[in-house]
């Protein structure tokens, strides 16, 4: 039973289709993130859910109600903006009270609710401050309290942390996630920061050029990227050109050496294919049976502090691997011959395109 249902949603500006056949089901209480590069249509999709843009075609349902053609003020949706968008003429308390006043709640109830919300976002002392008297992080907390005060069915956040500096961003990110979990409010979050997406979401929608590239849990998206785009957008990754030997058995050749893929390859025998491999999945030590073993020559070693990143040439291909730094083990030097070990399951064949 999905709480937010989006069906075949499209949006065009003139002949430019910026959102194409977008389908998504969000369960009640779920935290879903739209992740993608700039201009891929994340904001546009979110604004259609909020009602600020009209869908060119398709349908949006919130809690079973078709809201596709409802104005934003009838959708019962809370929204948090990148630039906070607090009302400059009102105090923090005034901002939080705005939605409650519009809903014609009793004055005593409003007062209690405002105090409760400011407590929730950890700003109980700042009720009488105007937006210009608060820091960015404080303003965004007020904006969050304001959006939640009316108990909306759905919370929408468009890059709410992007305008903040790094420390505040991480702190507020964790608080936001904790708050969302406690309140159990269904949330759609937009970001182009993969770390935010991976750390906060129940599920991630990776978007590119107005389409959904992949939909899955952070674990799936990170470890089993389905397309080359997703693989390269999320984290650092080896993208390796290989040749298929036996598609059904998952046998391929990398730089002239045999390797196995943990599942079927959907490419004909003898054809070229692309596989992805996370640097942290590759090891120089032999972990035991069943793993792929490939010999190569070290080309480059970079010391990054906690990890050492080693680049190894395997025939034409180049494979990066990460090893934890250990004071008793000096990094290898370029030119050394090494054997790379990795599990067949970590070798992920990518769809063409």
């Amino acid at each position, binding site marked *: 039973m999905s709480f937010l249902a989006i069906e075949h949603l499209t949006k065009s500006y003139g002949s430019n289709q910026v959102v194409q056949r977008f389908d998504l089901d969000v369960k009640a209480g779920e935290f879903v993130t739209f992740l993608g590069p700039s201009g891929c249509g994340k904001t546009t999709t979110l604004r259609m859910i*909020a*009602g*600020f843009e009209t869908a060119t075609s398709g349908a949006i349902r919130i809690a079973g109600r078709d809201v596709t053609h409802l*104005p*934003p*003020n*009838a*959708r*019962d*949706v*809370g*929204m948090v*903006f990148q*630039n906070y*968008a*607090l*009302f*400059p*003429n009102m105090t923090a308390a005034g901002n939080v009270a*705005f*939605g409650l006043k*519009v*809903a014609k709640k009793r004055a005593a109830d409003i007062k209690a609710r405002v105090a409760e919300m400011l407590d929730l976002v950890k700003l109980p002392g700042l009720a009488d401050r*105007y*937006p*210009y008297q608060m820091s960015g992080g404080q303003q965004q907390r007020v*904006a969050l309290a*304001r*959006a939640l005060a*009316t108990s909306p069915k759905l919370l*929408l956040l468009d890059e709410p942390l992007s305008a903040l500096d790094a420390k505040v961003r991480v702190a507020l990110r964790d608080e936001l996630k904790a708050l969302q979990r406690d309140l159990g409010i269904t949330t759609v979050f937009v970001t182009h920061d993969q770390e935010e997406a991976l750390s906060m979401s129940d599920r991630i929608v990776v978007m590119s050029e107005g389409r959904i590239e992949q939909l899955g849990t952070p674990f799936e998206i990170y470890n089993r990227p389905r397309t080359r785009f997703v693989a390269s957008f999320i984290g650092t990754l080896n993208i390796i050109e290989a040749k298929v030997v036996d598609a059904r058995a998952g046998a391929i050749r990398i730089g002239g050496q045999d390797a196995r893929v943990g599942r079927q390859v959907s490419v004909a025998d003898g054809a070229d294919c692309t596989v992805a491999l996370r640097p942290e999945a590759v090891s120089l030590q032999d972990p035991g049976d069943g793993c792929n073993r490939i010999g190569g020559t070290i080309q480059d070693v970079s010391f990054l502090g906690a990890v050492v990143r080693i680049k190894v040439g395997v025939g034409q291909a180049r494979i990066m691997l990460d090893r934890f730094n250990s004071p008793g083990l000096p990094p290898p030097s370029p030119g050394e011959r090494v054997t790379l070990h990795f599990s067949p399951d970590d070798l992920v064949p990518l769809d063409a395109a």
Partner: protein
Amino acid sequence: MKRPRFGAWLAFAVGVAYFAIPLIGTVEFSLRIRRGTYSLDAYGNVLSDPAFWNTFGFSASAAVATIVAGTLLVVPTAYWIRLRLPGLRPYVEFITLMPLIIPAIVLVFGYLRLYNSSSWLPMTGAPWSTDVLMVAGYVVLALPYLYRAVDTGMRSIDVRSLTEAAESLGAARSTILFRVIFPNVRTAVLSGAFLTFAIVIGEFTLASLLDRPAFGPYLQLVGANRAYEPSALAFIAFAVTWACMGLIQLFARDPAARSVKV
């Protein structure tokens, strides 16, 4: 260092002299109603004339009506253009500048032709409807100042985000306009309002040709028939204008204005 500073001071002195000398002359003349000695008799004569108070009251009421009508016309228009029709902005700006190019006399002749007592809408038929017509004319004359002031005020707030934030909190258009937009452009509206007040108080053409008992025609009447009182009146009119300017400065410094800038 010395020469440019001297030049700047000279320019300043010339500027001050240009404005101050006629004014000082006027004031000095207004004090000479009694032979051989200075006195405030001219001011006494003016202030004790009931026609002064009647016409001044009439014009002040007209100014207030103009400000209310003008604000209710201009704020929603400027808001809507910023929010939904940004493409129309150059055209609206041009239209609001028209009153600076077209003389008031043309406007009033147009009105008289359109709305005379034998026309389809005889606005000049009764005093109250003539007043309505006159205020409408004043709104037109005040447009360049009001629109510019309000539009500048709206530039300093993010009209679009604020509107969307209010909408997502359930607010209807009128609530957004009166609870969010108006308070945030209050300073701008006020400065436009005081300029409007200054314009309407001394306006002559419209009031005279529509034959309304306003302050402008009274100034002219006194000027044509008396010697010293017109100078006193001119100075009083000046003082009123200055008071308006002072009020603009005062309200521009109010705390809401600072919050708008952030």
